[in-house]
């Protein structure tokens, strides 16, 4: 690739053609301040904080979007630059409520960081409130436009990463704001609740619907038997909330921390992830053998389920009827677990720790009550679980490791990789291969479905039957696959779809920030956990085998269908029936 040499603050730097000034400066350890720039998104140059002076140019340029040119002389610290940045920041701060101590993003807010970076000591303008009201219409996401700094990252994420476009910029000039069309409320438009907008928001204008209060209330109630399940991806990320580096694997410390919070039993969603593989694998083989609708699409990701219900309802027969592991867990906790331990299911309060905001929506779906009760009572994001621990002085990194409780805490390596894009596919192939061929798989690490690329394909030979698989992450990639399937151009048997980039490790409930580099590290931690497990195939999970023997009967059998499977609802993109 062609290289370019330029000078930044008197230092010579050589970068590939096409590099922005912001990235080039980073190479010589100058971190130019920025707010609207995000490595996942194309630059929009809205915040004006990254401006630099280029010799010969009359105007300042935004370094996030301005490309380096041969011989260019850049000044990132002249008085003109410093004063302009200061002015831009003060204007932003003059429209920010500055209620930092009561904000969900206190201490990990990019506006705070930039104010600190620029050494802000006074704001020369009076506060003027922004337009827009607090939007609490969604089960998953809360929007507070008063805190918005109009960086547009949420809009870009919704449109470009997820191809959902639920929100947009509205109005003009001083009165511009981010909203849903006609001020409907985010819960009343085709928002899929993925929470990727929350992850990209630099401030506290977007956050999850808080469940910590209801969980504390249950923990305080002596008549409640409060149990908790932890999703695979949480163990590879929650350490970041306590200052640990990305990729820290803290499974057993997480168990210890949750036990300290007062949960009676700490169980693992991995247990029902293994169960999902048995149920979904059985469903796949049955569809292949009986000529059912193919490809079979996975159903673990509730943001993805919302997406297909709204945008591709005609393709719903492709979706596996399996509930997600979270919901399978809830249904079993209030039936199997309750019976086995002689506990009245009405006294069980079932909490889950999820890397996801859409799980909050999923848990509240009216059909998710096959136990006779609401199967999952509260859903905490990774962030909220960390907040609860911090509230009572539990510092996760310091804790001594403790194991999960039996039997719903027993799991395999196949379950933990559910947290990564391609993980469900790999886990399913490990099991389906052995069930069909009756032979052990030579190499159980199926590399073709690993990695963070948007769409991956693989083929596996099951005694002559070549099973074609595809894997996608990020809903814009799902849309590409669905368009091919709808056009009859995709001849897959099995497709795994995860709503969020990287899968659950990049979920909307995960620690902020999340970047491609951080996703990579979390994914490595997940594969590390898999490699360390004694059992790495779902069908070999002894607790799952016992569950079928004692309670469920056959995979896809009557009882399994009653408790572990669901149906989907055809929805529309727009509610206006007249149009």
């Amino acid at each position: 690739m062609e290289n370019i040499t330029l000078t930044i603050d008197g230092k010579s730097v050589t970068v590939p053609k096409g590099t922005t000034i912001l990235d080039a400066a980073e190479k010589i350890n100058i971190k130019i301040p920025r707010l609207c720039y995000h490595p996942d998104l194309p630059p929009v140059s809205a915040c004006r904080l990254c401006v630099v002076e280029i010799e010969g140019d009359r105007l300042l340029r935004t370094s996030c979007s301005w490309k380096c040119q041969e011989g260019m002389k850049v000044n990132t610290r002249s008085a003109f630059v410093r004063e302009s940045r200061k002015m831009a920041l003060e204007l932003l701060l003059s429209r920010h409520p500055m209620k930092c101590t009561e904000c969900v993003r206190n201490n990990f807010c990019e506006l705070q960081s930039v104010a600190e970076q620029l050494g802000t000591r006074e704001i020369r303008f009076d506060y003027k409130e922004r337009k827009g009201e607090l939007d609490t219409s969604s089960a998953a996401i809360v929007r507070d436009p008063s805190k918005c700094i109009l960086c547009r990252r949420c809009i870009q994420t919704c449109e470009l990463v997820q191809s959902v476009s639920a929100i947009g910029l509205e109005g003009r000039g001083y009165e511009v704001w981010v909203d849903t069309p006609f001020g409907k409320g985010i819960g009343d438009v085709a928002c899929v609740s993925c929470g990727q907008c929350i992850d990209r928001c630099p401030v506290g204008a977007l956050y999850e619907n808080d469940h910590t209060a209801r969980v504390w209330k249950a923990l305080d109630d002596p008549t409640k038997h409060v149990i908790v399940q932890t999703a695979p991806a949480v163990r590879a990320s929650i350490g970041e909330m306590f200052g640990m580096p990305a990729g820290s694997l803290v499974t057993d410390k997480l168990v210890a921390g949750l036990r300290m919070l007062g949960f009676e039993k700490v169980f693992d969603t991995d247990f029902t992830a293994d169960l999902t593989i048995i149920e979904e694998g059985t469903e796949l083989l049955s569809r292949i053998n009986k000529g059912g609708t193919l490809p079979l699409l996975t159903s673990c990701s509730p943001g993805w389920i919302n997406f297909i219900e709204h945008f591709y309802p005609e393709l719903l027969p492709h979706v596996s009827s399996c509930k997600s592991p979270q919901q399978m867990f809830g249904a079993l906790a209030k039936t199997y677990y309750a019976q086995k331990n002689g506990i009245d299911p009405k006294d069980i309060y079932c909490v889950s720790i999820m890397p996801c905001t859409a799980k909050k929506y999923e848990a509240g779906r009216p059909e998710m009550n096959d136990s006779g009760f609401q199967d999952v009572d509260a859903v905490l994001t990774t962030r909220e679980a960390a907040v609860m621990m911090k509230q009572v002085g539990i510092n996760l990194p310091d804790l001594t490791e403790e194991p999960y409780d039996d039997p719903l805490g027993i799991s395999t390596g196949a379950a933990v990789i559910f947290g990564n894009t391609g993980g469900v596919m790999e886990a399913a192939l490990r099991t389906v291969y052995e069930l069909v061929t009756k032979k052990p798989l030579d190499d159980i690490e199926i590399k073709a479905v690993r990695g963070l690329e948007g769409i991956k394909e693989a083929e596996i030979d099951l005694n002559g039957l070549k099973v074609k698989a595809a894997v996608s992450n990020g809903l814009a990639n799902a849309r590409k696959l669905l368009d091919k399937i709808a056009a009859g151009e995709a001849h897959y048997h099995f497709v795994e779809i995860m709503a969020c980039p990287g899968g659950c490790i990049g979920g909307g409930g995960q620690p902020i920030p999340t970047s491609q580099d951080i996703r990579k590290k979390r994914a490595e931690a997940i594969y590390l956990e898999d490699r360390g497990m004694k059992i790495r195939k779902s069908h070999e999970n002894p607790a799952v085998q016992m569950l079928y023997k004692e309670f469920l009967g056959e995979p896809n059998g009557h009882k399994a269908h009653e408790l572990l499977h669901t149906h989907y609802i055809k929805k529309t993109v727009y509610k206006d029936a007249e149009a």
Partner: protein
Amino acid sequence: MQDLKKVDEIVKNYSMTKTPLIYILKDVQKEYGFLSETLLTRVAKMTNIPLSEIYGVATFYSLFTTEAKGKYIVRCCNNAPCHVKGSKAVLDKIKEYLGLEMNETTPDGLFTLEFTSCLGLCAVAPVMMINDEVYGNLTPEKAVSILKDYKMKGLANA
């Protein structure tokens, strides 16, 4: 049920245009008076452009409106040259005559009162615009007499 066939026709008219949205919105507003939720949703379905983006465009340009407005939209300039030449007195008189505050519409649906930025007619300031017609060298009395003409015309055609 509103007849939406015209929306479909308008969208089809611009099927060969690369960035047709503003043309479509202009024609739809001309046909139906304003850009309602139903109309814009129909445009979204027909063009495959997300409603959030269409709504953004419709609220960005001040000549588009998402709410029902009067038959005659009175736009008074609120920039400096008109101000210097007495636009405030003109506006006060218009408000009094129509019984409106800014961005309100008369109950009979005839008039909506709005501000506009500079119309480029500073030589004849103060100015106002009623639909596509501009009026300059206004005095409070002259403005009211113009509005009276519109009122008569509007009531006669009602």
